């Protein structure tokens, strides 16, 4: 194992949240497990809180739980039945991409501990407007959609459902041991995976494994990949042409990506297929959905959106990936190219790589820096607010494209904010902000 790999894993282990945790059952676990397996009792074995880190995480977990509970209550109570959309609790916050990757990366996302102040620049419009709302509705016949996808992929056989999850259908191996495609009926998302497509590797001792097929790249041609991807993506859902597909070739895989366009604009909804170096399709995902226009609605001005909504994470929406100006070419460089030499000036000045995480906030009074316990307090002037459609997720498991603004300060801050006027979209209950040890909320 190389020193770099050792250092990397040592750094990971040092950041392990559980390394100093000592969890203990206060009751006899084996009896409980067996009884629980028999379905007769509910285990409530207690863990002892053994460290401050555990307590901190416990507090953080409380926030996520509160947010999840709020979503459930929103469904049951239905406090604003007139609203067209009741948002789920995981609506993305209006924060820059690098921050959202931390705070909003999964279902346990917390509201960002951001105290940023947003001001509308002089070029922003104070005029209200209007825009259409689109429902991303799963196709009514999920089995037919999955069968169509399976046919394109050469997967025949019956459509099955997982015993523990009836909402998910699949054709194939049912796990990651072989070719498999599954579809989640609630929202129409599907995914294909064939682990056998990955090239063979040779592992010798502690040395990094080497791919046997690394020297021989056998990707389909760009046109072949585009046509295959268009055929696959169109098998269930919106139709794509080969010319709609973008191709990216990396040292590991060839990617074909399609982006859903509505009103001529790219959205955050994407389809993707990837081929292993050996030339075999390794994975793909997409959405068996239709886009349903739910009508035109009034919108607030850009100035209003920035000054009244941007700081409130629940008004956030997901922008098309290109909007984030995020570095998409990272994978196109080999590991050795970068790790064995310092990044060149060109690579830094290209405007692609630096936005990953290196750029400091544009006007920072007290940036968080490397201390996670500090609260960011940035003053950000929004210089551009472009009308767009942002993706939001409702409490019933469906996604919507709603009018919004893509705002930026012209540097590294990008965010999507909903612009539909009050009363159309019901927000989830705000997550209660519980500061962790050492963090002060103002």
């Amino acid at each position, binding site marked *: 194992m190389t020193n770099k790999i050792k250092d990397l894993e040592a750094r990971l282990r040092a950041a392990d949240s559980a390394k100093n945790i000592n969890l203990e059952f206060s009751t006899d676990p084996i009896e409980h497990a067996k009884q629980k397996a028999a379905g007769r009792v509910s285990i409530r074995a207690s*863990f002892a809180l053994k460290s401050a*880190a555990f307590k901190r995480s*416990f507090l*953080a977990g409380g926030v996520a739980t509160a947010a999840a509970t709020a979503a459930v209550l929103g469904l049951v109570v239905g406090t604003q039945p007139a609203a067209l959309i009741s948002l789920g609790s995981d609506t993305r916050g209006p924060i820059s991409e690098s921050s959202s990757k931390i705070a909003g990366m999964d*279902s*346990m996302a917390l509201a960002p501990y951001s105290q940023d102040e947003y001001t509308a620049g002089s070029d922003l419009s104070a005029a209200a407007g209007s825009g259409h709302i689109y429902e991303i509705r799963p196709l009514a016949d999920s089995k037919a959609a999955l069968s169509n996808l399976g046919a394109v992929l050469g997967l025949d056989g019956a459509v099955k459902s997982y015993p*523990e999850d009836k909402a998910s259908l699949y054709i194939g191996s049912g796990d990651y041991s072989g070719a498999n495609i599954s579809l989640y009926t609630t929202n129409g998302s599907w995914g294909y995976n064939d682990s056998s497509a990955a090239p063979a590797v040779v592992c010798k001792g502690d040395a990094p494994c080497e791919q046997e097929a690394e020297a021989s790249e056998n990707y389909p041609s760009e046109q072949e990949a585009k046509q295959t991807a268009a055929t696959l993506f169109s098998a269930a859902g919106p139709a794509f042409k080969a010319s709609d597909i973008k191709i990216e070739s990396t040292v590991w895989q060839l990617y074909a990506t399609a982006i859903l366009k509505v009103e001529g604009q790219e959205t955050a909804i994407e389809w993707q297929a990837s081929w292993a170096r050996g030339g075999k399709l390794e*994975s793909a995902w997409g959405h068996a959905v239709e886009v349903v226009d739910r009508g035109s609605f009034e919108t607030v001005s850009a100035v209003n959106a920035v000054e009244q909504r941007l700081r409130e994470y629940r008004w956030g929406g997901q922008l098309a990936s290109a909007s984030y100006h995020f570095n998409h070419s990272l994978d196109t460089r080999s590991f050795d190219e970068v790790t064995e030499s310092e990044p060149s000036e060109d690579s830094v000045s290209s405007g692609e790589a630096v936005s*990953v995480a290196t750029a400091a906030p544009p006007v920072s009074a007290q940036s968080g820096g490397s201390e996670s316990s500090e609260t960011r307090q940035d003053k950000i002037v929004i210089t551009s607010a472009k009308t767009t459609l942002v993706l939001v*997720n409702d409490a019933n498991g469906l996604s919507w494209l709603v009018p919004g603004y893509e705002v930026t300060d012209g540097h590294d801050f990008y965010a999507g904010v909903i612009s539909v006027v009050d009363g159309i979209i019901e927000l989830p209950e705000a997550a209660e902000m519980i500061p962790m040890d050492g963090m002060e909320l103002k």
Partner: protein
Amino acid sequence: MRTEQQFTTLYRESLPLISKYLFRRVEANQVEELCSQVFEIAWQKRTAAPAGFELPWLYRIAANVISNHRRSLTRETSLIASLREPNSAPSAESIALADIELAEAWAKLKPAEQNVLALAAFEGLGVHEISLALGISGNAAAVRLHRARANLALLLEYQE
């Protein structure tokens, strides 16, 4: 593994490890319930445990339990979330408590890369054990681990 005694032994030896595995990946107040689910399933399927590799087998069960737990939390409210393959990796948030730069790089990895790296670095599994824990071939596990290490190193390199 067929006898109750064998299962009890496995349970007592692996309980701390499975508990930590869960602690890294879910809200702390969910650990006890999910831990009980893992061993409930393990008890029901104990005859299927691969001899000598019971721990990776338990990790695989735990990963499924976490995926279902996360799905139930969000009810798959997000197209963005659901297009990912089932994710049972530790969150960047959990890492951010100790190393914010590492957390930022971690968050940019694909879920599959996070999963394989976590099993290697946090759970200390080798390639073969990882393949069992993830239910993929040894080759695929090795490739994923190699790519994940490379990508994480690359992302960190860009941050420095």
